């Protein structure tokens, strides 16, 4: 996993609520057996019409907006457990997703793929979306070490599980940690009484 410390970049606004994993990556693109190439199909059915033409109204096709930070509506990533959704977001080049609420499984999948989900208040989100809309060149700074998100909408301290923070900053993952617990796991297996 790539290390994550601090990012300053412009953001892409996607003010839709309840964006589900079927929207992020439709099931027909899940036939691949590796993690590559999902970014090409992120938000596929919003980005392209049936003939594969770009939908000019969708924000990813609008040259006004760009950057590695996605700012999305409430309850982002609900639906299925497909990690392909996180691979698609990462594959497209997003490193941070900001929303007022994240679905559990997506949040975990994002963190396991070096994407930082930042939860903000609904009011902050509204202001932030407004700011980006009015001034697409607005830069946001995400400082993971100090857990600070700064934007013209204000400075905000965000939460992250302390263990996950260490993992992201150092580029570690859970597998290394779990394997280091091998003895304890084996002892547990021997002693369990049910």
């Amino acid at each position, binding site marked *: 996993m790539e290390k994550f410390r601090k990012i300053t970049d412009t953001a892409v606004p996607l003010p*839709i*609520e*309840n964006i*589900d994993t*079927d*929207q992020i990556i*439709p*099931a*027909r693109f*899940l*036939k*691949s*057996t*590796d*993690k590559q190439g999902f970014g090409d199909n992120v938000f596929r*059915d919003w980005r392209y019409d*049936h003939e594969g033409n770009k939908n000019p109204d969708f924000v990813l096709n609008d040259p006004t907006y760009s950057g590695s930070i996605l700012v999305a509506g*409430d*309850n982002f990533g*609900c*639906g*299925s*457990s*497909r*990690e*392909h959704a*996180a691979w698609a977001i990462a594959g497209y080049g997003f490193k941070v997703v900001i929303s007022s*609420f*994240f*679905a*559990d*499984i997506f949040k*975990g*999948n994002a963190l*396991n*793929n070096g994407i930082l989900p930042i939860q903000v208040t609904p009011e902050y989100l509204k202001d932030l979306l407004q700011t980006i809309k009015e001034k697409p060149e607005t830069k946001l700074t995400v400082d993971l070490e100090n857990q600070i998100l700064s934007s013209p909408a204000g400075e905000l301290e965000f939460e992250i*599980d*302390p*263990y996950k923070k260490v993992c992201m900053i150092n580029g570690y*993952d*859970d*597998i290394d*940690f*779990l*394997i280091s*617990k*091998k003895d*304890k*796991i084996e002892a*547990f*297996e021997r002693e*369990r009484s*049910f």
Partner: protein
Amino acid sequence: MAGKTLFDKVWDAHVVDTVPNGPQVLYIDKHLIHEVTSPQAFSELEERGIPVARPDQIVATADHNTPTVDQHLPVRDLLSRNQLKQLTENCEKHGITLYGLGHKYNGIVHVMAPELGITQPGMTMVCGDSHTSTHGAFGTIAFGIGTSQVAQVFASQCLLLTKPKSLRVNVNGKLKPNVLPKDVILYVISQIGTNAGTGYFCEYAGNVFEEMSMEGRMTVCNMSIEMGARGGMIAPDQTTFDYVKGREFAPESAEWEQKLEYWKTLPTDADAVFDKEYSFDAADIEPMVTYGTNPGMGIKVTGRIPDKDDVNLEKALAYMNFKKGESLIDKPINYVFIGSCTNSRIEDFRIAANYVKGKQKAANVNAWLVPGSQQVAKQLVEEGLDKVFTEAGFALRQPGCSACLAMNDDKIPEGEYCVSTSNRNFEGRQGQGARTILASPLMAAATAVAGKITDITKQLN
């Protein structure tokens, strides 16, 4: 000290270690895998030179991306065929039991594991599929995981997790006739919304769940994820024990007695406190349909679509081509799907067959029946239900996830409505531009016969 919940008891019994101020290492008893979310996890292990820790605690099936016709022939779609081949190779290489396409135990992962007795009370179970919550019907902690976590369980038989908060949904009273478990859960989600459960593990309690069959409890727990909860559980009781006993992988004789004693200690203590609680009166529930693009957008079939200013509602209605304040009764429907891990068990087909018997499906309707497993398919024939359906003009297909997620060829065409017994009505879920209306197997059968949405409350009382 306050008592423990069912969830606490099962969770606490599986904690291997606790990271100070951090997550816990939770031991996983059973790991179910399928072709779509496992290949990248196997590759990850291979790249890092890590072996699969406990292959005997893993069971594999092929279900998401399999055809539901001509399963004896090679799979036509090249990518799908490759995905299935990889699953087979990975299972062979690592010594994992696989119930592949055509095997007598093959089926949707959440249908086949309970019916084989793999799912047992008090266990922890995971699968790279969000509807793993289904197994909670047995008093099991069961939840969906991402592919990175699949790799973690492969590597260690454990997961690093933060214990979720507790939520209880109580439904008490007497259900009206023709109100099925699917209606109960669609009603609950329509009342509390699609993220009320996020961060929580849910327990369903009250006489309505106590009186439900195991099949019904599985339908309810299946949809826990649709209210945002990682999983849902129902306390194991005599109904649970009777269901598990004698199944292929259920414990026997002395081991059975010992486990039974333990399972009986699992129900939530009377003085346990939940972080959040909701209560509903069973008498308020009626047959449900959804009108929008998330499972929380549901109304009683006799009800009307809400009429309020809300951009999300407007976006959903634009997709569904419905209007605010409208009733869905008499809406013409051309597709009906009875299947998915929510409603493809034998009980669901019995209910549908009982309604369909002696009737004919409407000419405009394509009615797809997809049993959840080979065992359900076999039972359909043994009980003569296949004849009831084929005589009525329904198409009986072979087991799999099918039109629930439309990864294979079973797609609903653009713009068409489908009354579906599955669990998600997201945009494009059943095919690009397809419009899904979630309902019970009874509502689905009635729709297929009428060719339009009908008020079954009137018809059947």
